[in-house]
Structure formats: structure tokens, C-alpha cells
């Protein structure tokens, strides 16, 4: 018995390397397990949570072009219900569309966690470990089965973080990543108003680049920041110009949370 345990531990202890095929297989297996867990949780539901009604109504009102609803909830982050409303036009109900999309966001997030951890540690095994933690995370399992804005927001947040890590790793020397992070910042704000926190990522990444490579990468860091802020400014200005009521409310919301509440 003792020998068997020792041999098992030796087997687990050996320093293994994974081929590309094995990584893909392991990632697929984790995705299937993650999906299974979420579906399992979904089938065990015996009552609808409280927030669902509001989101279903939101999607239905968007598709019905109800002006009263738009006026009443113009402060409400519109991205998640608007995507679902677009999907609904294919003929499925608002509830089904919201559930399918949320499950989709949650599974995509598990996949993006692989890329994020792989790029942070420059190691496929770390990517798989991060993916496993994401797939089994109890809170993410719970969120995936409910109609909430969180799965979409967490996906946008993670993709932004991954892009910023690629910029730091020098894999994003081209100018595409800052522009992507700029666009994701706006999408994040439109998913939850707290999404403005994504604006931190690229400036922080630029500072890290300067720390990492000393001054020789100053030009790259500054260019990235300029591209990033230009993207954010152009998108914000376009939305302001188009009279988007949610965008016009953001400064007031930030003032309310970070200035008035402190007083």
C-alpha cells in the first residue's frame, strides 16, 4: 500500500511538459466540465431569482420601442439587454436569449482565463490551472445560470486585462491592442457603470513597460497611451454627439459616487 502511494506520488511529482495537442485536449476537457457544472446547476434551479424579471422586461421593452421605459431607465447600462434584444429578433424569447447569452459569456470567460494566465506566466500549464480555477469557481457557476450583467462584464474585463498583459509582454507592440482596450473600456462602461475602472489598465501597462525596460521603451508606452486615449475619446464624443442618454449620465454618476458620497 505504502509502495503504491509512493509510486502514485512519484507519478504526480514528475516534471511533465505538455504538447500543443495535450493542451488543447485539456482545455477542451475543462470547458466541457465547466459547461457541465453550469448546466447541472441550471437543471437544479427550482425558482427564478429576483433580478430576472427586470432584465426580461428590459429586453421586451427595447424590442417594443416603449418610450416610457427608455425614459424611466435611461440611467441603466444598456449593453446587455440590447445584445439580447438583437438576438431576440431571430424569434426566440427574451428569457431564452438572456440565458443562452449569459451561459455563452461565462464559457468564453473560462477560455479567456486560459490565455490570460498563459500570457502572465508564459506557460501553458499555468493557463490550464487558471482555466480550471475559473471553470470550477462556485460564484461564476452561480452567475452563469442567472440573468445578470456580471458574466458579460467579467468577460469584457478579462479580455481587457489579457490585452494589457500582451502589451506588457511585448506581444502587442502593434497599435491594435491599445485600440482594442479603448473599445473594450467603452463596452465595459456600457455594461456596468463601474466599467470605467478598465480605463486604468492601459496607463498602468504603460508604466509597467517603462519599469520593465527602463527608458528605452518610452516611445512605445507613450504611443500606446495616445492611441488608447484617442480611441476612448472618439467613442465617447461620438456617443455624446449622438445624444446617448446613458453616456451623458456617466459624469453625474461618477460625481455622485466619488465626490458627493465622500462629503
Amino acid at each position, binding site marked *: 500500500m505504502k509502495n503504491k502511494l509512493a509510486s502514485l*506520488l*512519484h*507519478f*504526480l*511529482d514528475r*516534471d511533465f511538459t505538455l504538447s500543443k495537442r495535450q493542451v488543447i485536449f485539456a482545455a477542451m476537457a475543462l470547458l466541457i466540465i465547466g459547461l457541465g*457544472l453550469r448546466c*447541472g*446547476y441550471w437543471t*437544479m*434551479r*427550482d*425558482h*427564478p*431569482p*429576483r433580478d*430576472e*424579471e427586470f432584465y426580461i422586461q428590459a429586453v421586451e421593452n427595447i424590442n417594443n420601442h416603449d*418610450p*416610457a421605459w427608455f425614459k424611466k431607465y435611461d440611467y441603466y447600462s444598456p449593453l446587455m439587454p440590447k445584445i439580447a434584444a438583437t438576438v431576440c429578433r431571430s424569434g426566440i424569447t427574451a428569457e431564452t436569449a438572456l440565458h443562452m447569452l449569459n451561459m455563452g459569456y461565462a464559457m468564453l470567460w473560462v477560455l479567456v*482565463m486560459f490565455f*490570460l*494566465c498563459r*500570457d*502572465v*506566466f*508564459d506557460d501553458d500549464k*499555468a493557463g490550464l*490551472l*487558471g482555466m*480550471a*480555477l*475559473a471553470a*470550477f*469557481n*462556485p*460564484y*461564476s*457557476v*452561480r452567475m452563469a445560470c442567472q440573468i445578470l450583467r*456580471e458574466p458579460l*462584464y*467579467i468577460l469584457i*474585463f*478579462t479580455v481587457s*486585462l489579457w490585452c*494589457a*498583459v500582451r502589451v*506588457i*509582454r511585448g506581444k502587442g507592440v502593434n497599435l491594435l491592442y491599445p485600440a482594442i482596450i479603448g473599445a473594450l473600456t467603452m463596452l465595459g462602461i456600457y455594461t456596468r457603470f*463601474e466599467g470605467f*475602472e478598465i480605463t*486604468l489598465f492601459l496607463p*498602468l*501597462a504603460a508604466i*509597467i513597460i517603462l*519599469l*520593465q525596460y527602463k527608458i528605452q521603451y518610452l516611445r512605445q508606452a507613450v504611443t500606446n497611451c495616445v492611441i488608447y486615449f484617442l480611441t476612448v475619446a472618439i467613442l465617447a464624443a461620438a456617443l455624446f454627439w449622438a445624444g446617448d442618454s446613458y453616456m451623458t449620465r456617466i459624469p453625474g454618476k461618477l460625481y455622485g*459616487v466619488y465626490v458627493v*458620497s465622500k462629503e
Partner: protein
Amino acid sequence: MIFINGFFLVNFIPFGILALAGIILFFSRKFKNEKWHYPLLFIITVILFISLLRISVIIGRRYAMPTMVPGIVISVFAIMLLPEILRRFKIKYADAIVRLAVVITLLTCAAKAMRFQESKPYLYKLSEAVQNDCDKNNVNKAVVLIFGNPGGKLDFSPKIDVLKVKSLRIRDRFIDIEYQLANLEPEYLKLSYPLVYMLCVGPESGNFAVDWAKRYHDKPELVYEYIRVKDQTALQLYRLTSNYPSARSSPDELGKILINNNILKNGDFKSKHRLPHEDSSAKVLRSCGVEPSADGDIYFPEKWMIDPGHGWKSACKPVSIKLPEDLTDALIIQSKDWVSIYTEDAFDGGKAYLVAVQAGAGPQGGKLTLWAYIYSADMKYVRTVSYQDIKLSSPSCRELIPFRLDNCEKFRLVLLASGDVNIKNIMAVPAEKSAK
């Protein structure tokens, strides 16, 4: 505190602890790894910044959610360092032990995920109990007042209205009820609903029915009770039965009660009178952009007045008022700001009324609210009481509002309109006319 609680909730406690340990280990020189250092420095800075930013917006544990992403990355870092740490303590099979521990923790994660799903059979049973009781009493409309949080959505039929009293605390239950229902006395819900249900969520030992009877002199009957095993919380469904014919009447019968007992004069705004050119109201209306008729005079519904000092002075131009021309027409008010009209006659306070408003909104949308001006016995203005918003749909719908003003001698009803509003009719009936 909510943030720390939320951090451990979203990361799952073992991995939350690992993430915190990872942040500490990162700053230890012994474990510095050039390959990971800068991307990890970025991730740790992000988690620290987000923690600072989020503390201001956190009102619930789930707002700590974005820390889950950097939290997982830092947990991975801590897990990758663990074998090295164990080896420093000369522990054999360090890698194997860590891998086994991770697998076991992941399995507990899965178990934890499934345990989130707590069965809540009472949510269905409560809805069923209300429906069965309605069927037994042969009524097709009812209202449910929910005191407290039942922990999920109650699936009532569309004929059952639900009013939530969110801030109920058992210790000061009636202070909260009094506050929430100040304008909607439970007794006067019975004017509109034949059955009023009250769902009380509280400790098993709570004595809702007795407390309620002391406060409102009407003992509710217990219809259904469920004791939640995990925390011994009682979900009790009580019922009050109405004896007002208005509550059980069909729309036509109710219409007759309202028409026969209406005390409001010119509630359909059909009779109008000319306002003298020098009249202060006419001047205010003209200054707001209300267009005079062909003869140059302004006409206004009889028995209705405007208060030049309230709303009208600050109203932005243009305000438009169109009086009803025939039986199907309504009084149309179009205004960017709130403007008000009120009854010339004053009514007795300390009594209950049932007010019926038939109104609608134009394509641009509008809002209509019912207020009351309170007067002393010698008709000196005392204060204004706001009542409730009136549901508007296109072209018009009728809403019944139970209405009571205690502690006042006289009052006048006020209608406040904003946007594009059409008011077809307003009637007020003393509650005793609707009682048996």
C-alpha cells in the same frame, strides 16, 4: 468589510486565502521570478486599484466580483510557488502534494457550486396558496403585500397585484409599515380588492397577526404558513377580507357606483368658462404660452383652478391646454414641466375616498400625479400632500386610488401633469358610499 466578505465569496475561501498569500509572496525577494515579475506586478496593481475604487460603490458582496479575475491569476502564482516553498521545508513529493491539494480543492469548489442551489418550495406553495384561496372565495382579483424578503420571485397570476414593503424590520415593524403605507392604508386597499393578502417573513416567534390587530383593529386570518428549516424563519400568509361592494363589483357596476356618488363637479371638464382678461390666472396662462381662443379670451374648465404661485410660474414655455369639445374628448395638457390644476370645491378631511382617474398619455409620454392641498377649518392653506402617480397608457385607462386624509379639516384635490397628458374624467366617491 462587505468588500473583504465579497472577495472571499467570489474567489472561494481557499483560493481567496491563496490570492492574499500570493500578494505577500510576490513582494518577497526569495521568490522573485524575472519571467513573471512585471506582468504579475501589473495584475497585483490592478487588484489593489480595483479594491480601492470598488469600496465606494459596494452595496452588496457581488460588487467585489471583478477581483475574481486578478484573484485567480494570483492564486495560480501562489500554487506555482507552493512546491518550491514545501521543498524549502524539505517535504518530500512537494509537487505531488500541491497537485493533489489543488484537485481536492477544485472538487470542493464543484460541491460548493452545487450547494448554492437551495430548494425553495415555499415560493411555489405561497403562490399556489393565494390562487387556491382566491378560487375558494370566488374572486378574480387580489393584492399581496410582501413584508420582508421571501428570497425569490413569487409567481402570481397577472390578476394578483403585488406591493412590496421592502424595509420591514421586525423590531420596528409598524413604524416601517406606517411609513410605507402612509398613503395607502390597508383598510382602503379593501376598497379596490376583495381580498388583501399579507406575506410576512420573520422569525418563527413573531406574532404578526396580534401586532397588526393592535395597530389596525382588524385581525388578519392565517391562510398558509411555512417554516424555513435552516434559520427557523416563518413565511406566513394572512388574509383580510373586504366588505366594500366596490371591491367585488364588475367594471360596469363600479362605474355606476362612481357616477351615482361622485362628489367632484365637472370632473369631465366639459363645462368651461371664460377667464376675464385681467384675471391673474389668465395672465399666468398667457405668459406660459397658452393660446387664447378665436375671440381672444382664455377658456378654462369650470370648478377647476390653477395656482399661479405653484408650478406655473417656473413652467417653461410653451404650455398647451386643449379643452374637450365633445363627449369623446379629454382635457389635454402638454408641458415640459409640472403644471397643476385643482378643484375649486373643498372636501371634508378625516374621511376615506375612492378616487377614479381616467387618463392617458400622448405619443411623447407623460406623467400625472394626484396631490392634495390641505386647509384649516377657515380655509387657510396648511400644507400640500403628495399622493401617488397615476398609471397612464395610450389612449386612456382608469385607475382607482383609495384616498384618505386624516388630521385635516378640508382639502382640495390637485392634478399635476407633465409631458403630454390627456385627462378624460376624474371622480371621487366617499368610501362609506361604497361600503355595505
